[in-house]
Each structure stands twice: as C-alpha cells, then as structure tokens.
C-alpha cells in the first residue's frame, strides 16, 4: 500500500465530503447549534414558568367573620417568593368566576375543630397555585397548633409526633451520582451520534460515488483496491470521530450549563471534582476511536452494496434500528460487562462507557472491548475490500445481490438464495436470537430455548419463501442412501472426541467463559431428562440443521466452491454459539456435519449427527456418574497425556472411517 496515494486520495475524499452541505450540517450544526438551542430553550421556558408562579401575589377573599387571627396567618407568611392579598368583595363566587380573586376561604368551627373550606378553579393556573400556597400556610398553622396543644398537655411534641425517626445517608460521592446518571445517557447518545456522523460520509463515498459515476474514473488510475478502501475508510472514520467529539462537547457544554443552573437554584453546590473524570474521559476517547473504526466499516459495508443514494439509505435504516436496539442494553441495570457481553458489538461500548462513568476500571475488559471493536472493524474492512473488488458490485446492473429489500414482484424465482441475502438473514437471525431469544429464555426458561429454535428456523424459511427460492433444494429436503447415516455416525463420534480435546485446550485459555456456559446450562434445563432431550437435542437437530446446513450452506455453496462454503458455514455455526470457548468445538462439529451434508446432498444425516452430539451431552449432564463409569475420560478435570493421545487417535480413526464411507461411490 502506497502511503502517498492513500494520502492524496484521503485529501480528495475529505474535500469531497466536507463540501457536501448535508454532511456538514449533520456534523456541525446538529450538535453545536441544535442541541444547546433545544436544551437551553426548553430550560429557560421551564424556569420562566416556575419564576412567574413563585413571585406572584395571590388575591384571596374571606367568606366569614374573621376575628383577625386567620388574616394574620396569611399576611405574615415567612415566604419571600409569594404573598397573599386579602380582598373583601360583595359576591365572592362571582369574583372568583371573573378571575378577580384566586380563591375563597370559609371557616367554621365544629366540635372545637377549625374547618377551612377553600373554593378555587382548577382550570385556572393562578387559582390552583394559590390553593397550593394556602394549603401550605394552613398546614404550618396546623402544625404549630398541634405543638402548642401537646406542650399544654405536658408531652414532648417531637417524641409524640415522630416516635420513629429515619435518616438516609448517601455515601456515593457527587461524582458517582453524576456518573451513574450520565452512564445511562452518554453511551446511547455517543453511539447514535457516531452512527449519524458516519452515515452520510459512508453513503457519499460508496454509493454516492457509484451514483455520480466517479468510481469508474477512480478505477482508471493506478490505485490498488486496498488503497482506495483505506482512504475512504479513513475519511469516514475521521468525520465520524469529529462529529462524535463535537457531539460530546456540545452535550458536555449543555450539561455544565444545566448543572450550574440547578446549582444556583438549589444554592447548594456539592462540588463536582472534574479531575476524577479524566481517566474515564481518556479511556472513553480510546473507546470512541475503536468504535468509530467499527461503525465506519460497518456502515460502509452496508452502503457499498447499494447502487444509489436512495438504496443506501434504505439499507441503513435497519442498521440504525439494530444499533439503537443494541445500545439500549446500556440502560438495563442487570446487564453487566463480561466476556460474553464484551463480544456483542455496540452493546459492549455502551456497557464499557457506563462502567467507566461509575469508576469501574477493569483493564482486561477495557482491553477486550477495544480489541473486539478493532477486530470487528478490520474484518468489516476486509469484507468491504472484497465487496469493492467485485465487478458485479461496481458495474452491476442490479442482478443478484440483496433481494430481500426488492419488491416481491421484481424478484425472480431461483434455486438457491444469494449470499448477500444469506448474510442479512444470518445477522438478523443472530440479533433476534440474542435479544428476543435471550428475553424468552429469561422468562420461560427451558421453553425459551424452544422459541429460540423457532426463530432460527423461521427467519431463513420466510426469507426463502419471500425471495421465491426452491425450498426443497435450499434446505436439502431429499432422501439419501443409508450409508451417509452410517458414515455420519462414525464422523460425529470421532468429531465429539476431537471436539473434547479442542474444548479442553480452549478451556485452559478462556477459563471464565467456559464456567459461565456450564453454569447457565444447568440453570436452564431443569430436571426432566426426556424434556431436555427434546429441547436441547431434538429441536436443535432439526432447526439448526435447517438453518446452517440447509440455508447457510446452500447459499454459500451457490457461490463458493465446496471447501470454502464448508469453512464459512462452519465458522458461522461456531460464532452463533456466542462463546469464545465453544467457538472452535462447535465450528469443528459444524464443519464435519457440513462435509457429510455436501456429500450426501441431504439434510437428514446431519440431523442425526447433530442429535447424537447433543443427546450425548444432555446424557452426560443428567447421568454424570453413569457416564463417568462407562467413559472415564468424560469426567476427568484435566486430561493426562495418554488420554489425549488415545482420544486423538480414536477421534481421527472414527472421522477417517466415516469419511471413507461417505466418500465411497458405487462402481458401475
């Protein structure tokens, strides 16, 4: 990559983007003018209203013969912000109706108690405020009266009125209180402002360039694909970061203004030590940069698929919704940053920023979140350069590509889904599984798992029907020779052994997350073995197979050669299980099942293999002692070298035998 070329391309991109009015408005005017204006206006309107209330003089009318002590009460209130004017009028009700007075007070004495009747009009603001103030005055009169009665009776008024006294002492510092409040809002605002900031430049540099026809000009120049992508990516990232920083400054400014205002009203400045926020701001800035890399790359990926500005806008809408949804996680009190949540894009940044504002510094977590964001970003950039490299995207006239957003009448019937559609379906399903499936599991426990499985099979099914693809072909709903079932069993038994070795290794590296997984499993499954067998072994064997070996593998093998298709599908299957420690094991198992599925051209041997694998782990969970007796290796905490060798040997042997059976063709 030639740095000089990237530099001059970057300069061009920046000039091009910054001279676009839309981008500049989004970047500058919204944060720097609109936010403060809206906030300050609404604040001054509100304070204006409160001021006008409290500095009023309320006119009241006594509708009884006052011996002087009531008048005295209202004349000598201790308040400075309001006062009463006692008016005498002929017809008080009429005066009230004409708004000449704000309230009428009547006083009677019954059984030695003083009764006050207050007549007012709730529909008129001043009248109802006056009533509040009258109530306040009378309450303090009643309180004083009570005290003097109690004192007359020889009682201690404080003891009698409040025999139990409760004091609250908030030990969190002002900074922490401020932090926890900000921790809810700032991550969300930050994420959204970054997304908004990157959106327009992302569209402009990708779909915009295509629409304006300058991309072909660019291709005539001796510029490599990576130089082109890098310069675009840097430009979008720069603008994203700039707009995020401007947003933060604007928010900070407005926050400080509001804080000052509140402080002067309350006249009690607790004193906020701003220097305590410095490390948070520092780490937060790093975090913004990492997140900017991620979000720029993602939005560019989405936009690069579009042919025009309008189309890119359409594609970005679902992205915005997903990002918004994920950033709401920062609002949920029980969701904390751990090794699993750190892997969820967007949510991880929100949670980290929230933690930072609560002064929780977990170096490992900070490093993990930064790493994850940069890694996702890089993967997306690589994907982007792949997308940008394809002539179909650059010169494409709209054949193939994403069909889900097309009008259904425009979609042509076909055999297999496109890979672009498949990626969308995968991402959408993953989102639903994480959020809806997660919620269902929290609420319905083991049945929630079943709901998750319905999501897993439902989305690809709907997508396939909507895009008019051949269901039988896509999901491989075809019978096959029994030898594939037979071979498949061998492959999966070998695969389980190899998988155990792999998870033993990954378990050493990612201790915590392995523990997390096994704990949550035992919590969910309950104690009925047949039920667990149905939900954990049978349902996934059907649903996940249809999704991963059916839809995903089908779409991938429509475009790539079988090996690449298997590797991609296996990796997706691994990622779907949402745990680093399980990734390699599940990817291995997934890959083996993919192989059998490709060879047999049928979904059913894979279902059997999947069921075998899951059923075995369910059995191990329920009958630990028995399995330990039959397969002692299963129960061991750590594996000895001899165990490893034996398992490796048997594993490879079984897989090899299975492959042999699956591969062998009848000779004519």
């Amino acid at each position, binding site marked *: 990559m030639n740095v000089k070329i990237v530099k001059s391309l970057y300069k061009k991109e920046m000039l091009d983007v910054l001279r676009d009015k839309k981008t500049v408005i989004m970047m500058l005017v919204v944060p720097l003018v609109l936010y403060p204006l809206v906030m300050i206006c609404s604040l001054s309107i509100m304070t204006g209203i409160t001021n006008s209330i409290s500095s009023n003089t309320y006119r009241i009318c006594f509708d009884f013969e006052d011996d002087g002590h009531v008048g005295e009460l209202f004349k000598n209130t201790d308040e400075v912000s309001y006062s009463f004017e006692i008016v005498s009028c002929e017809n008080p009700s009429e005066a009230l109706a004409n708004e000449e007075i704000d309230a009428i007070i009547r006083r009677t004495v019954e059984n030695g108690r003083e009764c006050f009747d207050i007549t007012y009009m709730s529909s008129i603001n001043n009248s109802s405020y006056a009533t509040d103030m009258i109530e306040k005055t009378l309450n303090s009169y009643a309180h004083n009266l009570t005290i003097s009665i109690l004192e007359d009776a020889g009682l201690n008024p404080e003891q009698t009125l409040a025999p139990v006294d409760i004091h609250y002492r908030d030990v969190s510092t002002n900074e922490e209180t401020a932090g926890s409040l900000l921790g809810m809002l700032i991550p969300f605002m930050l994420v959204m402002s970054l997304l908004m900031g990157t959106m327009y430049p992302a569209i402009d540099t990708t779909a915009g360039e295509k629409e304006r026809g300058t991309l*072909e000009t660019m291709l005539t120049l001796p510029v490599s694909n990576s130089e082109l992508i890098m310069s675009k990516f840097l430009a979008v990232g720069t603008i994203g970061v700039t707009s995020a920083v401007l947003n933060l400054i604007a928010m900070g400014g407005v926050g400080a203004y509001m804080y000052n205002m509140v402080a002067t009203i309350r006249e009690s400045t607790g004193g906020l030590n701003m220097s305590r926020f410095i490390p948070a701001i520092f780490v937060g800035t790093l975090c913004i940069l990492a997140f900017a890399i991620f979000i720029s790359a993602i939005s560019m990926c989405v936009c690069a698929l579009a042919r025009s500005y309008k189309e890119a806008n359409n594609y970005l809408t679902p992205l915005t919704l997903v990002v918004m949804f994920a950033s709401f996680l920062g609002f949920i009190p029980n969701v904390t940053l751990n090794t699993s949540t750190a892997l969820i894009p967007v949510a991880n940044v929100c949670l980290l920023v929230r933690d930072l504002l609560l002064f929780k510094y977990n170096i490992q977590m900070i490093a993990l979140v930064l790493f994850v964001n940069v890694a996702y970003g890089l993967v997306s950039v690589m994907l982007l350069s792949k997308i940008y490299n394809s002539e179909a995207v650059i010169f494409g006239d709209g054949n193939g590509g994403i069909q889900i957003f097309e009008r259904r009448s425009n979609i*042509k019937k076909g055999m297999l889904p496109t890979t672009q559609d498949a990626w969308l379906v995968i991402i959408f399903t993953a989102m639903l599984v994480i959020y809806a499936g997660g919620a269902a599991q929290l609420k319905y426990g083991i049945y929630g798992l079943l709901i998750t499985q319905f999501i897993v099979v439902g989305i690809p099914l709907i997508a396939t029907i909507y895009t008019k693809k051949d269901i039988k072909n896509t999901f491989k709903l075809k019978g096959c020779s029994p030898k594939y079932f037979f071979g498949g069993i061998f492959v999966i038994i070998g695969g389980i052994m190899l998988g155990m070795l792999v998870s033993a290794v990954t378990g050493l590296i990612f201790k915590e997350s392995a523990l997390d997984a096994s704990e949550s499993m035992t919590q969910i499954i309950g104690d009925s073995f047949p039920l667990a067998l149905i939900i954990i072994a049978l349902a996934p064997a059907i649903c996940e197979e249809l999704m991963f070996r059916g839809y995903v593998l089908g779409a991938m093998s429509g475009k790539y050669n079988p090996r690449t298709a298997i590797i991609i599908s296996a990796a997706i299957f691994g990622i779907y299980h949402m745990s680093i420690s399980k990734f390699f094991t599940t990817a291995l198992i997934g890959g083996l099942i993919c192989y059998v599925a490709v060879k047999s051209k049928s979904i059913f041997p894979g279902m059997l293999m999947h069921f075998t694998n899951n059923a075995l782990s369910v059995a191990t969970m329920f009958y630990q002692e028995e399995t330990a007796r039959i397969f002692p290796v299963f129960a061991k905490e750590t594996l000895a070298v001899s165990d490893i060798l034996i398992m490796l040997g048997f594993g490879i042997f079984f897989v090899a035998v299975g492959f042999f059976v699956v591969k062998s063709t009848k000779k004519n």
Partner: protein
Amino acid sequence: MLVGENLIKSFERNEKRGKKTEFNAVDDISIEVSQGEIVGIIGANGAGKTTLLRMLAGLMKPTSGQVMMWDGDEKIENELVMKGKIGYLSGNTKLYGRLSTRELLDMIGKIHGMNTSEIDERIAEISKVLNMDGFIDNRIEKLSTGQTQRASISRCLIHSPQIYIFDEPTLGLDILSSSAIIEFMRKEKENGKGVVYSTHYMEEAEYLCDRIIMIGKGRIIGSGTLDELRNDTGFSSLREIFGALASQEEDLYEC
C-alpha cells in the same frame, strides 16, 4: 504498444424462471494498438465494445486471455503500472463535482507519482492547450458541458500516457466540441501516442482511423485499414462495409 490476447469476458444473464446462463460479451478478441496509430472499434449497441475497452484499460479482468503492454522490449503485465501509461475516457468516467479541475488534476498527478512542481508545470501546459484558464479553479459541477468535457480530457492527459483508450468520446457532443476532440486525437497521434476508440459515427472513423475493427456479438467480424476492408467487401463507404459484414455474420449464426 498495448496488446490484448484472446480476450474473453463472460457475464451471467438472468433468463426466465430465474435460470442463469453464461454468455460471452467479448468472445475471443485479440487486438493490438501501436504508438502513432489510431484504431477505431465499430459495432452495434451491445456488441461488446465497452467491455473490450474496459478490459484493455484494466477496469475489468478478462475471464480468460491477457492484456499487456510493450514499452520497447520491456513487457509490462502489472495492471497498476499499465494504468499509469494509459489514459481512459468514457461516458461513465464522471468527475468529482465538488472539486475544482486544478484540485482534481493535482490529486491524479500525485496518484501517478508526480511531484508538485511537475504537476504544476503540466497543469499550466494542459490548461493552455485545452483553453481552460478561465474555469480551472471553479468547481466542476458549475461547468458547462463543453467545459466538463475538456476537464475530462485534461484528466487523461495529466500523466502523459502512451496509449489513449476512448469509449465513444464524441457521443452526444455538438459539432464544435466533437471536432475539437477529433483534432485532439490526430494531434496526439502525431506526437507518437497510440489511440484506440469506439464510435458509432462512420464518417468520423473513415476520416480518423488507421485501422478499423468491426465487432458483432463479441467477435471480430472484420478488421484492417479502410482500403483492405474495401477490397474485401467491394463496398466503398464504411457504412456499407459494416452493413455487409454484419449481415454476413447473421447468416452464419442462422445456418
């Protein structure tokens, strides 16, 4: 010298019932453009002219076959190096509207590895030749059609390429603008540059081209100098020659 050997480019075409069929937009065409000559490519719409020129310019990769350049005895196969010696212009190569012509030329010069003083000199030179002094610092989106076309040509000139590839450069232009472009190509030929360009205007090709290649359905249906083509077919005007060759080809397909 720019050489394309046995170039094939196949695309997928959607047909009824969603079946995809492959077809060759360019079907085994070999072409050579030397310094100091103008090669014209003539063909009906959809004959594969644009695809052929895009492959020659390195914008598209051939499905099979090879594009290379000879710089004297030195063979160049690296796509990026070749792009540095080619100036490509088509109706689809639009300019960045928000930049001025000077900024655009400056950027392109830098990408071609020229230094600042070289670029400034070259811009002054080109601006004089194409008479762009009056608008070189205006944003391109504010220019008139003729001015934009001149700016587009200046983009191909900045790095002093050896070969020009023009895809229908005179399409949709008025007489003045198109004759300016024709004169430009003649001048560059005299300067020892090679030009390959496609056109629908037969008279223009008759006047300008040293060699003419006629293509139909992705294949060469006739090629040679104007005189050679006249001798082969017995017709005198290019229009008649093309008509005869095209109908011959049709017959071939129908048999």
